């Protein structure tokens, strides 16, 4: 270990580069996985924060986002009248593309009945809509487009006044905005239409039993909110999870390359010294340990530096671009440590093999 430390310490710039390489890999892995997890949480934020355990949709609809659901007429009353159902919250929702300041902004429009729920769960400013020409916009969306309370926005041929700003309803790709359900019915020209029902079951009633009873109603599908959330995550993961995971894997590979290259160079430069050690009887195992210890020291330094950088970068990015949610859990840092150790092992392999194959006499000739 002492020899490994001395080998590394002889060239501080190289040691710093080594640590920086691993730190960069760890930083990227933590940020990318954090962005992916944050994206998933933002996608399901509405389902996570609204009441109810079951979601009733039009037959064949298994998602909340990116699809259109229109329940058969009278479905709300039939669901409400089903044994075991305590309360029903009807919403009329759909994606909308807003033209704000010359940019296309996808936003998820939710029409709700304020007295029954299903609207914004936390207001940063203002109030809930009282009239059909009033809306609550997500606070971050509003800030990105310089919208404030009292401003007016044109949506599908209607001018809406911003009367409230909601908190926790944003994501980097799309944000929520809320109108009264009657206003959305009028916007989509479907009086009385309902997309989904958020169902709360009676205390003590079995959710599975209630679900079975609801599923027997004509023209509807019934899912737990957890199932719908999983389907929405799967849908979005199809587009964005693969590139993010690929980037994280490449970052880990690059980390291994960086450490590998530095350890390799350091080993080759010290080839004569290793040869001398072999000539005086040092077994291969001891020399392997020196190389692996070098990798470990550099990698662990990189893991610590990368983790600290990731915490700082997370705070910086979320302050500058609040539409991004970056989630860093303790388990992520454990993963970073495992990746760091993995990088050290992979990076040490080739140099160790080179030392193992070294003929002591050879080094003196060189």
């Amino acid at each position: 270990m002492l020899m490994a430390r001395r080998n590394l310490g002889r060239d501080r710039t190289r040691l710093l580069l080594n640590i920086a390489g691993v730190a960069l890999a760890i930083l990227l892995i933590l940020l990318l996985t954090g962005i992916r997890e944050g994206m998933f949480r933002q996608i399901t934020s509405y389902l996570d924060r609204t009441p109810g355990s079951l979601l009733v949709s039009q037959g064949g609809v298994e998602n909340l986002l990116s699809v259109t659901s229109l329940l058969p007429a009278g479905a709300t009353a039939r669901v409400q009248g089903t044994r075991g159902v305590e309360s029903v919250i009807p919403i009329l929702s759909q994606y909308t593309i807003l033209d704000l300041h010359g940019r296309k902004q996808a936003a998820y429009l939710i029409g709700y009945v304020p007295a029954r729920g299903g609207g914004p769960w936390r207001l940063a400013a203002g109030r809930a809509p009282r009239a059909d020409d009033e809306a609550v916009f997500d606070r971050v969306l509003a800030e990105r487009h310089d919208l404030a309370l009292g401003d007016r926005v044109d949506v599908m041929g209607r001018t809406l006044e911003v009367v409230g700003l909601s908190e926790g309803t944003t994501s980097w790709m799309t944000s929520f905005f809320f109108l009264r359900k009657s206003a959305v019915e009028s916007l989509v020209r479907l009086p009385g239409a309902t997309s989904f029902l958020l169902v709360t079951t009676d205390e003590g009633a079995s959710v599975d039993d209630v679900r079975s009873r609801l599923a027997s109603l004509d023209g509807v599908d019934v899912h737990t909110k957890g199932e719908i959330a999983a389907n929405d995550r799967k849908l979005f993961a199809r587009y964005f999870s693969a590139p993010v995971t690929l980037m994280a894997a490449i970052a880990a590979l690059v980390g291994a390359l960086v450490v590998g290259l530095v350890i390799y160079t350091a080993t080759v430069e010290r080839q004569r010294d290793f040869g001398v050690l072999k000539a005086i009887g040092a077994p291969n195992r001891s020399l392997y340990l020196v190389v692996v210890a070098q990798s470990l020291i550099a990698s662990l330094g990189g893991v610590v530096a990368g983790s600290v950088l990731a915490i700082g970068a997370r705070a910086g990015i979320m302050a500058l671009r609040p539409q991004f949610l970056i989630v860093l859990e303790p388990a992520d840092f454990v993963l970073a440590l495992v990746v760091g150790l993995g990088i050290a092992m992979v990076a040490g392999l080739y140099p160790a093999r080179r030392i193992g194959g070294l003929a002591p006499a050879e080094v003196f000739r060189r």
Partner: protein
Amino acid sequence: MIRLAWRNLTQNPARLLISLGGVSVALVLMLTLDAIFTGMEQRVTAFIDRSGADIFVSQQDVRNMHMASSSLARGQQARVKSVAGVASVTPILYVTNPILAGKDRSLAYIIGVPSDAKAGGPWEIESGREDPGAGGVVLDVGVAAKAGIGLGGEVEILGDTFEVVGLSHGTASMAGSVAFISLDDFADLRQDSDTVSFLLVETAPGEAPEQVAAGIEARVRDVTAMTRQEFARQERKVVRDMSTDILAIMNIVGFLIGLAVMALTVYTGTLSRRAEYGVLKALGARNGKLAATVVWQAVISVSLGFLIALILTSLLTVATPLASASLRLVIGLPSVAKVVVTSLVIAGVASLLPIWQMARLDPATVFRRR
């Protein structure tokens, strides 16, 4: 200097390989991601481009199909038809919803078209018929093949069962496919026969679509009318504006990865030749010349890495449609230009530390260290 840089690079094949591998992987990522979104931009307008309509009429302020919804009163059709320069008006209904084929579930633009549609129907039929008719659906051939069904097979749309009566080509993209059912079936599913989503207008021969669209907006209330080209431009803008953030992040990540690999390989490459550079300095070589050697090393590595990345991405553009009919990669010139600039910045920044070290190099020390 270029020759010296080239020799320095090729003397250690392992280091050169790591350098080229790392940089090209980073650049491939940047190019591929751009290519995916450029491909999506082009595919997302497939229905609009091939619809046969000259003008799209939608609910006021609705300028998109993708992730949008438009509702027009049926009565608007007659009003639009009466505008000068309009040859035909076809109403369509549209939603984005899943199609359930066997156990396979995929998202699709569901288009409801009337049987006498002048526009808006499938544009290239592989087999079967063009008009879905009552209870029928015209499905994308790739979606049908993936689900293992053909003509006569059944799929579920919005909870109802439809028989596959036609298979169409060119109707799939990464965002989903396009499926055609009859306008009446669609209205039944919505339990609403009073509204349609869009009106597809064909202009009379010799009429300028821009002028006819302006005429429609002037004479018909509560509608937005756009030429096909303008409507497609708005649609592409949705993909572009929505992908800006993810592309920015991935570009920064790609840049950092490329920079890390390049900085380290140039640095270690220079470091291992420290003695030789010391000799050159002792012989009177100026710092500027030695710095140029380092920069050339970086530029050559990055240029080779860029070429490898371009070749790999081009191969991907050929291979991906074979693996997935819905995924199409298109390498755009702006994307190539961006990656070239990024590569040069990487080469420049990666050279800084070695140049600084070389400038501080004392020729006498290298002999001592020897």
